[in-house]
């Protein structure tokens, strides 16, 4: 901003001067800004809020979302995925061929980018790829471990060519999780060969090929990544630094975001209710410079109320009419409204219209909400109401630790089913107990599964075929199996032509929807929150963490406001924190402002006492209540003493 001083002598002409100079300056600035934004400015620090730290940062690792958020800027995988079409785009491989051989086998050839170096200067070669896929990946990543079943061998004819030889035409490689996406980054062979891979020190201070280098990890507090000046994509990245701040509670995350201590939050670490509140604040204009947006789950995740269809499962659920009646009784729109604030899509069929699964949208639908009809069907099927008004009883088992809002969904479902005469008992378990009971012991009647249905046929195979009936986490705990659907899905797995593959899957889904082995209630929506000082490259990628791809393109993110520095507000007085939930260490207000130019060495966000957060009226009311209570007790004590 430009300040002009008014000349005390001649107000009139001074005003004219002001006007002319002001217009001129604005004009210059406008031109200057435009010119500057043609080339994004370099510099800036992005603070990402995460709720917990990943156990390890090995690059070819277990694809969990905490891990993926931190590791993405550090490394590259062979290919990446186009957010709209899910087609392969070049990563460390600049070109590739997928060849189907005469004897129904498959060869995938990758031609690697040249002149790529690791963060420690060593050149990147095909040997790194071979080592990662043969030795490191299988230890940590179940997708890559599973790939070995179909992999005959990996050859490296020269330093920049890798050949994967498969014993069959495995169509799943077209989707994230194998050659691109979370957990598929290439690790440096020269640092891992000959060492104990599981305990290699580079698992916690990784060396990769990505736009940012690992700098520091203070356990329980933050992880710092620094710009890689020698990144093989010339001119990138723009940011100086990315800091991952660990904020353990949703309230703290909300406050941190409001105060600008955290710039970016991607779905995890903030509860839905808080995100909705923040969205309202942004829409009301109370949070300038921030953006909150909801988008369909990139992996097509959804809530699946699965039935136990094993031999020992409850008898009524074996009758498809009962299952249809239950589907008719559950008001999925009400669940979407009440549990998810209307931000999710009530499901008409077994997949949502999210980009990850829209291609598989089958023709068949679940029955609509019709409790009267459901009652009639159950009566006809012979399940009459007993003297207590109930036909039979079911236990609904949920994981209330990782998914606390499932308690509400379960309570709604219980009410819906009570309306048609089914008594539902809700059993809440913590995550480990839920996995044990549901996936390993198969000890449940119904359960709410936070399944993912995409991308690709892999998850349909995992959850709806006999191959998935194993006593392991994230398997076909329902015990559902339809031979016709299974045949189609396994054929799709082998199909390399994407169009044909999609059609096969759709046919299979039609069969499954008719069988109704579960009630697919709502799709899930993710939320992202962003400080709009940063560029739109921070937009969520289409695909979910866990097996997805570029959830943000960290190399392309830049700090917009570096073009036009703004004035920093004066630092406010800092008082000691009152609420124990504010585990966030507040930052100096000067650091919060966007004017962190590349030349100024930005200090580490130092720990200081948080500014008081609780509003004044809360203190007054609490004080008054406490005083009243003390007065009452004092009066009684005094009265007894007076005797």
């Amino acid at each position, binding site marked *: 901003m430009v300040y002009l001083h008014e000349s005390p002598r001649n107000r009139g002409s001074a005003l004219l001067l002001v006007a002319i100079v002001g217009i001129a300056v604005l004009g210059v600035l406008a031109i200057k800004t435009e010119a500057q934004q043609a080339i994004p400015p370099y510099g800036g620090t992005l603070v990402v809020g995460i709720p917990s730290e990943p156990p390890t940062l090995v690059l070819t690792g277990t694809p969990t979302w905490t891990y993926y958020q931190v590791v993405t800027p550090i490394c590259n995988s062979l290919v990446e995925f186009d957010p709209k079409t899910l087609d392969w785009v070049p990563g460390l491989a600049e070109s590739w061929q997928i060849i189907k051989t005469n004897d129904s086998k498959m060869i995938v050839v990758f031609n690697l980018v040249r002149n790529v170096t690791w963060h420690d200067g060593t050149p990147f070669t095909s040997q790194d790829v071979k080592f990662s896929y043969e030795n490191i990946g299988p230890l940590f990543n179940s997708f890559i471990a599973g790939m070995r079943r179909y992999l005959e061998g990996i050859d490296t004819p020269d330093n920049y060519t890798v050949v994967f030889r498969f014993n069959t035409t495995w169509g799943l490689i077209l989707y994230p999780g194998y050659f691109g996406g979370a957990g598929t980054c290439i690790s440096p062979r020269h640092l891992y060969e000959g060492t104990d891979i599981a305990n290699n020190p580079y698992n916690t201070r990784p060396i990769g090929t990505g736009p940012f280098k690992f700098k520091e990890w203070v356990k329980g507090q933050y992880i710092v990544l620094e710009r890689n000046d020698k990144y093989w994509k010339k001119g990138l990245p723009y940011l100086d630094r990315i800091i991952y701040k660990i904020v353990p509670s949703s309230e703290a995350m909300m406050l941190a975001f409001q105060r600008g201590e955290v710039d970016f939050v991607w779905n995890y670490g903030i*509860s839905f*209710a*808080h995100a909705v*509140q923040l969205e309202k604040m942004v829409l009301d204009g109370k949070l300038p410079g921030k953006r909150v947006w909801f988008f369909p789950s990139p992996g097509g995740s959804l809530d699946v109320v699965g039935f136990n269809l094993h031999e020992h499962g409850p008898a009524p659920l074996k009758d498809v009419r009962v299952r249809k009646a239950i589907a008719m009784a559950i008001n999925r729109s*009400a669940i979407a409204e*009440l*549990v998810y604030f209307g931000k999710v899509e009530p499901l008409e069929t077994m997949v949502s219209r999210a980009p990850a699964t829209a291609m598989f949208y089958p023709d068949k639908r679940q029955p609509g909400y019709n409790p009267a009809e459901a009652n009639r069907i159950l009566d006809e099927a012979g399940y009459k109401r007993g003297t207590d008004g109930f036909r039979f009883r079911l236990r609904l088992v949920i994981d*209330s*630790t990782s998914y*606390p809002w499932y*308690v*509400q969904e*379960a*309570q*709604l479902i219980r*009410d819906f089913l009570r309306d048609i005469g089914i008594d539902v*008992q*809700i*059993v*809440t*378990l*913590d995550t480990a*107990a839920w996995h044990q009971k549901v996936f390993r012991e198969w000890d449940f009647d119904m359960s709410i599964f936070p399944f993912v249905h995409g991308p690709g046929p892999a998850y349909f195979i995992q959850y709806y075929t006999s191959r998935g009936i194993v006593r392991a986490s994230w398997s076909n705990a329902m015990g559902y199996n339809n031979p016709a659907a299974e045949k189609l899905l396994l054929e799709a797995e082998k199909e390399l032509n994407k169009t044909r593959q999609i059609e096969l899957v759709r046919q299979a889904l039609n069969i499954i929807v008719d069988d109704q082995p579960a009630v697919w209630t709502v799709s899930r929506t993710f939320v992202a929150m962003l400080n709009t000082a940063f560029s739109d490259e921070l937009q969520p990628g289409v695909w979910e963490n866990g097996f997805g791809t570029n959830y943000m393109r960290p190399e392309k993110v830049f700090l917009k406001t570096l073009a036009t520095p703004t004035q920093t507000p004066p630092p406010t007085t800092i008082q000691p924190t009152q609420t124990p939930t504010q585990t966030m260490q507040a930052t100096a207000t000067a650091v919060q402002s966007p004017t962190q130019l590349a030349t100024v060495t930005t200090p580490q966000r130092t720990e200081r006492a948080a500014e008081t957060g609780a509003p004044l009226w809360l203190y007054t009311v609490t004080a008054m209540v406490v005083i009243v*209570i003390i007065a009452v*007790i004092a009066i*009684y*004590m005094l*009265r*007894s*003493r007076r*005797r």
Partner: protein
Amino acid sequence: MIDRRAINGVARVAVIPRYVTRIYKESAKLFSGIIIVSTIVILGVVAPLITWYPPLKTMVSQPFSPPNPRNPFGTDDLGRDIYTNTLYGVRTSLLVGALSTFIASIIGILIGAIAGYRGGLVGDILMRITDMAFIVPSFLLALLIATILGPSIQNIMIAIGITSWPGIARMTRAEFLRIKEQVFIEVARAIGVSDKRIMFRHMLPNAIPTVIPYTVLQMSNNILAEAGLGFLGVSDPNVPSLGQLLNIAQQYLTTSWWIAAFPGLFLSIIIIGFNIFGDGLIEYASPRLRR
């Protein structure tokens, strides 16, 4: 204030039971404690009569409705009536509090009695165990046990019960040590009365007046513990609970204050009431504590 002489006059004329006037005269704390506790208990008992929705039923009205004639305390995020669930939650709190305290009392009195009567090595060992159990933060242990066993209402009762006995044990032991010195116990032993009979027929009834008030105070602690567990999410979703309501209310404090205010108010009243009641019992039973 009512003139004391008038009360005396009335008592002779009308039929106010003598113990009522005696309590009112001797300990204002006990009197007010009894009134508060009995009001709460009556509320809990008649809850089904004075509410018009089934507890835990969702969507009885628009979610997040502020207090209105149909929903005197408003509704929560799933459209459940808070008035109904608060009163039923009071019931749950009282039930869980009473039963868990009962469990704790049985364990505590047993251990305290044996430790106090026996003395010697057995007594020492028991007291060391009690001390160790005392040091362990009972709430966290109850949380752990309830999580492991699964958060059903029975398990929560058991969890709170088996972690809150040390205080009662100490109290009982102290009392038994004191009573043991009395002459009539020596005489009983000399006569040849069996240990067990002495402990439970002779000593325990004398210890009760001092131990019971402490038990009542422990009960108010246990009610708080149950609410605390519910607040942290460890509650039976099939049973209305004040702690569970407060847990839900957390997210909506600034937008829907009524979800937290009324359950919180009732919880406070219950706990304060039991505290006053317990203190009143102590005051009433021990003349030397009064002036």
